[in-house]
């Protein structure tokens, strides 16, 4: 299943409802959120007084040093974690818990090892059974074709390569037509080649339906290539160091990264991030990137 085949599949005539949901993409907002961990004596404020608004239909990328609390932010946006103080809002409504309007793709694969790729993808609609079987099958087959995993439908996750597992997870998220897609460093474990292919594939996907997307990464090239808006985060307690609007033309091609304009953005971000990383390294303990 060559990578190029995926591209010319996209403009096939009958696109099921999954793609027509451009108009209801949502806006997300964090208002002076605070979150800390540990007991009194080693209390650590991972996020303090953090405010950020994410515009609808935009690919917002958060980049920051490891251990700066990116994953905590993702958990709060997805509803797995509640802020100590402050609010997290989706379309002006308070987020209380996980829901299918905000789908997350994690760093390590969360495909259930005991289900085949197909069973994983149809897991959501099946337990909610909000789709008649025939239409669900059509939608699932369409998505499998789109992510280029048609021959791998009945394979178990352990039989798939890293890149394929990511694509299956994307399909599993998209089948639920979420308002917002949240990606927590999804391509981190992949080798350079699969990573580039996945980045290109993800950008195509985004440019097609312009769904609100939040992408967390620590790779600067990946951030610049994907982002409409780049949010540079500081060390703990996390705060917004800088917001850079990436004006690179859409649809993005990989070679855009070696254009002088991209290098300007990269130098701009590198400056801040290197300083943050150095300070983080001096103080760092092995706590996972909480």
């Amino acid at each position, binding site marked *: 299943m060559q990578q190029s085949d995926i591209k010319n599949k996209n403009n096939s005539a009958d696109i099921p409802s999954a793609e027509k949901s451009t108009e209801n993409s949502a806006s997300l907002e964090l208002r002076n959120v605070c979150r800390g961990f540990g007991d009194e004596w080693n209390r650590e404020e991972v996020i303090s007084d953090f405010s950020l608004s994410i515009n609808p239909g935009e690919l917002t990328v958060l980049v920051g040093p490891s251990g700066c609390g990116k994953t905590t932010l993702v958990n709060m946006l*997805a*509803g*797995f974690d509640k802020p100590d103080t402050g609010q997290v809002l989706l379309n002006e409504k308070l987020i209380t*818990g*996980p*829901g*299918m309007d*905000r*789908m*997350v793709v*994690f760093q*390590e694969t*969360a495909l*259930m*090892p*005991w*289900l085949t790729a197909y069973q994983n993808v149809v*897991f*959501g609609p099946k*337990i*909610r059974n909000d789709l008649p079987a025939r239409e669900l099958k059509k939608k699932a087959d369409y998505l499998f074709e789109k992510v280029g995993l048609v021959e791998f439908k009945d394979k*178990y*996750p*352990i*039989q798939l*390569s*890293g*890149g394929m*597992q990511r694509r299956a997870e994307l399909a*599993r998220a998209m089948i*639920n037509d979420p308002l917002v897609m949240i990606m927590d460093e999804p391509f981190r*474990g*992949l*080798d350079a080649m*699969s990573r580039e292919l996945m980045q290109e594939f993800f950008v195509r996907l985004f440019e097609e339906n312009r769904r609100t997307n939040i992408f967390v990464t620590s790779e600067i090239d990946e951030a610049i290539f994907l982002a409409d808006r780049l949010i540079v985060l500081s060390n703990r307690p996390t705060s917004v160091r800088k917001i850079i609007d990436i004006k690179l033309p859409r649809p993005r091609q990989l070679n855009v990264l070696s254009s002088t304009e991209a290098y300007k953005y990269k130098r701009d971000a590198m400056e801040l991030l290197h300083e943050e990383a150095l300070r983080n390294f001096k103080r760092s303990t092995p706590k996972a990137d909480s």
Partner: protein
Amino acid sequence: MTDAVQSKSISSVSKKKSKLEKMLTNKSLWRGVVALIGAVIFWEVCSQSKVWFGVEIPWIGKVPPPTEVIAAWQKIFYYTGYWESWYLSTGRVFAGFIIAMIIGIPFGLLLAVNRYFRDVFFPPFEILRPIPPLAWVPASIIFWPTTEMSIAFVTFLGAFFTIVINVLGGARNIDVQYLRAAQSMGANQWDLFWKVILPGTLPSIWTGAAVGMGITWEVVLASEMISGGGQQGGGGLGFFIWSSYMGGTVAQVIVGMISIGIAGYLSSSFIRYLGVITMPWRRLF
């Protein structure tokens, strides 16, 4: 992940050796066979040393040699009582084992899932767990009307504690990502249990079962020996060994030991086999 994938593509390039051919040329297999034969010969020589060389080797000297054991085995091979004891012991083992699984698995899962249930029922469970199962034999003989039921109860206890601990352990360290992914896809508590926690704990349920099976054989043998020696002892391999010992034919005792070893091994591999069938996704590791 991709490295493992690449290395697989190496082997597809040239001829594959057949499984049997690989087995035959496997050096360690031959060494194992040599070691086993050597051990049997060593046993023969030591046991016969009194007869052949006149000097009696301590310990092993008193044990009848393999040739005598095989002779004893042939003698009773066609004696129905022998196979009946197999049948009785296996029946008792599986009776206790199945009850332990039926009660143990849900109990373990409930302990893992519901915090309050765990707070209430885990302390008494932990207090009773260190008491070795065989210490319950006399108490269970008093309590249960028939010896059959008392043996089944002790076998149940033997397997129950192991199964519960394994299931609890397995259920509690399911990767939280699976639960979160399912939750965000709209799974309610019931779905989470049936569609994520249960399949996720399956591997440790089977490990618990395999270990539990091993313990049930130990317990059945002991209870048969301890209570079987009594009045209406219902037979079984344990009783067979004890009565052969009482009857003075030591070779038959060793026959009993070997048969219960084989029976134990067969039932454990049966459990492993069940595990392999019910978890197709694990076979690919």
